[in-house]
């Protein structure tokens, strides 16, 4: 045994076993590392009983068998182990190699500190991101505070003009009978109207500024949203051996700020992961599924976990900012609060729909893509202006095309209403005034056109250049692909938001 004595100088814990798998040598540091004093190590008859793998990533026996059979070296995956009679866990890598006919050398690379620091780092980075977002929001609020001084100044003039002129109107109507005052009256009324328009523009700009937090929305398939969120968290799930399953439903689409919603889903998935990890329930699983609510024009994404649920006394607090069930320094508790803010900005709702010892179900309900898009159009445009913007309905399944039109709306004041299905389009046509319809290739057919015309027979029909069978239908215009702004506006005879009389 003295031949290995020099190994006592190593910083790495190592063992040597003989062909009966008995420990014939261990260096000084191994004793310190494992917490096993010489007395305890003496009692170990077979190295198999020395340690156990907590996450089944390491099997020392298999490694020893392998090097004995094939020679060479065996390096394990990174895994959690603990030693005989101790509860302390170590995150390590084991390296086993055959020294000679009889002896096998086992080395431990302890990565516990590295892992814990890495985890802390990741958590802190996430917390920093959250803090940054809060800072940006606080900064924005401060700007709004500063802005409001400017705005109250801007609004005060048109307000003064409007109210002054209404007083003048009153006086004119009371005191003057003759027709000469008619001009004065009309002038006062015009002054009032133009002042109100001015005020309206100012508030619309305010709204735009406030909503800049939710960046431009895009049409996206809900499946894709879920896939990308899942992709971000699946390594963590794998590492902890917790199953993550998603149900696919390729038909549902959303009109949302993709990154923001992804953030919400990742937050919910992480919470589910933590809940399952910390629970003693035997099943360790998180499920993600979606459902469509056609009656209410909305859809939902649900995240179900098999954790131990949320305590009754805190259930009402979970969406509060700074509320957290985690230890100091482990979580700021901004996740659910920010998530609910994001969902609110999308006119949706996030809630805890089920809570028990066997787990929770969180559900995110969002308005259908068509409704979201329509709401955005309506709030963006001024309803006081004289300009009449005719609405164009685009019926298309292609996400790229849909997002082309939403971008166009931002640029030229919102004339394009977008839908991914005929049935939804018919719904829209019931209550909204539309005079032009653009059909995407996949949804163009004589029947579909007829059902549209049945709602409103003077609607102008437009198709794309590569669509088949267009001769069967009375087409007003053909839009060339790939889509470009000038061509679309020209073909539809739209002059940057102002319609020509047809």
């Amino acid at each position, binding site marked *: 045994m003295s031949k290995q004595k020099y190994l006592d100088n190593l910083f790495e814990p190592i063992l040597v076993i003989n062909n009966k798998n008995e420990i014939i040598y261990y260096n000084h540091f191994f004793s310190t590392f494992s917490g096993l004093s010489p007395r305890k190590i003496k009692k170990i008859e077979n190295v198999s009983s020395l340690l156990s793998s907590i996450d089944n990533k390491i099997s020392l026996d298999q490694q020893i068998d392998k090097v004995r059979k094939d020679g060479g070296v065996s390096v394990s995956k990174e895994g959690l182990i603990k030693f005989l009679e101790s509860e302390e866990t170590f995150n390590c890598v084991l390296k086993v190699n055959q020294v000679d006919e009889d002896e096998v050398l086992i080395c431990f690379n302890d990565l516990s500190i590295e892992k814990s620091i890495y985890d802390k780092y990741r958590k802190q980075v996430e917390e920093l991101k959250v803090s940054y977002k809060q800072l940006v929001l606080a900064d924005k609020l401060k700007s709004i505070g500063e802005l409001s*001084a400017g705005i*109250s*100044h*801007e*609004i*005060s*003039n048109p*307000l*003064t*003009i*409007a*109210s*002054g*002129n209404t*007083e*003048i109107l009153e*006086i004119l109507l009371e005191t003057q009978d003759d027709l000469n005052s008619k001009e004065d009256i009309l002038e006062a009324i015009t*002054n009032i109207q133009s002042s109100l328009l001015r005020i309206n523009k100012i508030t619309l700009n305010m709204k735009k500024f406030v909503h800049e937090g939710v960046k431009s929305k895009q049409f996206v398939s809900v499946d894709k949203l879920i896939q990308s969120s899942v992709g971000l968290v699946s390594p963590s799930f794998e590492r902890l051996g917790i199953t993550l399953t998603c149900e696919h439903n390729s038909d549902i689409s959303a009109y949302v700020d993709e990154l923001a919603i992804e953030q919400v889903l990742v937050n919910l998935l992480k919470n589910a992961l933590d809940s399952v990890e910390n629970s003693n329930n035997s099943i360790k699983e998180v499920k993600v599924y979606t459902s469509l609510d056609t009656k209410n024009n909305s859809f939902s994404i649900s995240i179900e976990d098999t954790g131990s649920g949320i305590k009754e006394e805190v259930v009402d607090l979970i969406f509060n900012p700074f509320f957290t069930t985690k230890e100091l320094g482990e979580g700021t508790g901004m996740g659910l609060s920010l998530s609910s803010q994001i969902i609110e900005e999308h006119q949706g709702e996030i809630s805890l729909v089920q809570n028990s010892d066997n787990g929770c179900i969180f559900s995110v309900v969002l308005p259908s893509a068509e409704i979201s898009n329509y709401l955005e159009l309506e709030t963006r445009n001024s309803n006081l202006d004289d300009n009449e913007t005719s609405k164009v309905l685009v019926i298309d399944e292609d996400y790229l095309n849909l997002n082309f039109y939403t971008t166009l709306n931002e640029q030229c004041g919102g004339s394009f209403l977008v839908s991914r299905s005929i049935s939804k389009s018919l719904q829209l046509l019931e209550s909204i005034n539309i005079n032009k319809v653009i059909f995407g290739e996949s949804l163009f057919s004589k029947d579909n056109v007829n059902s549209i015309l049945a709602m409103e027979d003077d609607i102008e029909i437009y198709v794309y250049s590569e669509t088949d069978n267009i001769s069967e239908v009375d087409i007003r215009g053909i839009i060339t692909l790939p889509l470009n702004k000038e061509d679309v506006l020209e073909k539809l005879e739209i002059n940057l938001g102002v319609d020509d009389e047809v």
Partner: protein
Amino acid sequence: MKSKTKMVSKAKYNVLVVDDEEKICKIIKIFLDMSSRFSNVVLAKDALEAMMKLNNQDFDLIIVDKSMPNRTGLDFISNLKKSFKLGKIKVLLISGCLTKEDALVAMKLGIKDILIKPFNRQRLMEKVGAILKF
């Protein structure tokens, strides 16, 4: 109301209204003209025009907007004071919003009162009446 021993015909005042928003100038003029206490209500759209009017005529009251593009109302009054052109003319400052700093400056300049926009005829007349003491 103070009673006077002598009967005097009611004094008529000359007012200069300075505001870059022409429509507000007009409204103030219409309101002032409705009362019989003003012989001349003159309008100016900025400090420069106001100076010209001041050179041509005497005024009892200047109604000036604080926020004007080239020179603010406070600067205008301050200049008048420094060049001794203000004399006994009283000043009413109108503004959409007034900070504490503005109020302090106004007080130092001897500005009699402030009127926050938007205002109605009654409020305008109350303040003007109080300043000119009628």
